[in-house]
């Protein structure tokens, strides 16, 4: 099989500063200021063409950071990510300009993504049709409901024909009808052999749709494999975690937090 996405030893480090002055000193002086925080540490995996991969993990485990890095929005601190072709991220907050109309936003967004005039003119009617916005397309985006915004964002992202699609919790908004339409579109992509990453807290949706899963725990890759292998482990972990007393849970979290600030494990 052809490799579509290769993530190699990816680490994303953030700096936590206690004071604003530390931030400035860190920037200007060679000495290090502030506490390090590893949002991701040494994550490696490979995706083949046509894979549909789910990211699982509890809140703050680095799922969104990883998806941003694969989408090319955020640069990794260390390591490399190779993506074959174009990638598109679909997230709930998809960077629309509130003051402009939906139609203007379509062109603006596509310009930002590097499309030329002709391509934009070709795709615009399809995007408007798919978004089901009707006459709202010529109204400013600030008058949209959150469902309408995410519908517009989703329509734009799927119509730019990406080779790698990353969906970050975007299907949780919008009514059932539209969610089904999106799933149809995604199945269409699946049939075309495009690679997809799927982030959701709904395990049911994930089992139905994905073949593989990446389990992140506190910024590290805990498991990567087929959905049948990873899911039972993850579910077991969730059960164990739930079974812990409040105190044990807190200790577990704090230990992990401490680990994340250390340079080496």
């Amino acid at each position, binding site marked *: 099989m052809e490799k579509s996405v290769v993530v190699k030893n990816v680490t994303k480090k953030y700096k936590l500063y206690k004071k604003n002055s530390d931030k400035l000193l860190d920037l200007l002086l060679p000495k290090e200021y502030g506490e390090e925080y590893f949002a991701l540490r040494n994550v490696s995996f490979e995706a083949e063409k046509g894979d549909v991969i789910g990211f699982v993990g509890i809140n703050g485990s680095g799922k969104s950071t990883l998806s941003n890095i694969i989408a090319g*929005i955020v640069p990794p601190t260390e390591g490399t990510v190779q993506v074959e072709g174009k990638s598109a991220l679909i997230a709930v907050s998809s*960077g629309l300009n509130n003051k402009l109309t939906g139609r203007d936003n379509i062109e603006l967004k596509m310009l930002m*993504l590097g499309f030329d005039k002709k391509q934009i003119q070709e795709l615009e009617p399809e995007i408007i049709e798919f978004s089901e916005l009707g006459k709202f397309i010529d109204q400013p985006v600030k008058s949209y409901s959150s469902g309408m915004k995410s519908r517009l964002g989703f329509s734009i992202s799927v119509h730019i024909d990406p080779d790698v699609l990353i969906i970050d919790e975007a299907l949780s908004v919008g009514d059932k009808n539209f969610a089904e339409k999106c799933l149809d579109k995604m199945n269409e992509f699946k049939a075309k052999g495009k690679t997809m990453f799927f982030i959701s807290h709904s395990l049911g949706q994930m089992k139905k749709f994905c073949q593989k899963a990446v389990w992140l725990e506190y910024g590290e890759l805990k498991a990567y494999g087929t959905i049948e292998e990873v899911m039972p482990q993850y579910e077991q972990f969730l059960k164990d975690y739930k079974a812990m007393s409040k105190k044990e849970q807190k200790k577990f979290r704090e230990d992990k937090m401490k680990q994340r600030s250390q340079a080496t494990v």
Partner: protein
Amino acid sequence: MSAAWTVLKEQINHFYLVRRLSAYEMKSANSGNYLGILWEIINPMIQIAIFWFVFGFGIFNREKVDGHDFLPWLMAGIVVWFFVNPATTQASKSIYSRLAMVSKMSFPMSVIPTYVIVAKLYQHFMLLGVIIVLLATTGYFPTVYIIQLPYYILAVLILLVSFGLITSTLATIIRDVQNMVTSLMRILFYLTPILWVLDAKDHPLIVQIMKLNPLYYIVEGYRASLLGESWYFIENWEYTMYFWLVVIVFFLIGSSLHVKFRDRFVDFK
């Protein structure tokens, strides 16, 4: 040097992008109020009227400045300030306020300050048209000297883009730079010969120092073209050389800063 080359190539290759994005920039700035873009004319007119009343009518007591009546002299110089001031302040916050819009690292980020400045340029053209008509009503009909005006427009545009590269990068990393730029513009308004001018015969040294400000060159150039005085950039060719030297230095500093930090802009969100 290679950074300057990268930025220069980005500016040229994405000309269409700059044009479209600046059109949207203008549209989104003026949506929501009824008079829309007309405010870009109304506001300067109110300011010119009040400056004329306070300085021309009041303080200078209707005296002539450099051999011109105060009002036309003021209008010919201040017209470019209404472009320089908003363009500089907007350009310095252009990158950090638009990071959410830029959804790809591969986006040529150096065009962001450029398109914000170009959006202001359209308004400048409108105001310039109005000012040329108003000057005609005060007796200053366009002369042959007006054909040098496009040169000064281009010069100020390139100056602002080069300076914008510096401030937009620094303001993304350290937000306080934005406040510094606002203050700087307020100072420059009084240190550029817009409302008043020092006679070079009385204070040669101070005038020399004030001429270090490249906007001095631009304002005097606008005046020379609109009031039909002289071929300013040829007659003061040493000053022209100095101006372009400053622009090149700004551009080199700006592009090297920009290229050095742009991969990490998103971390400063």
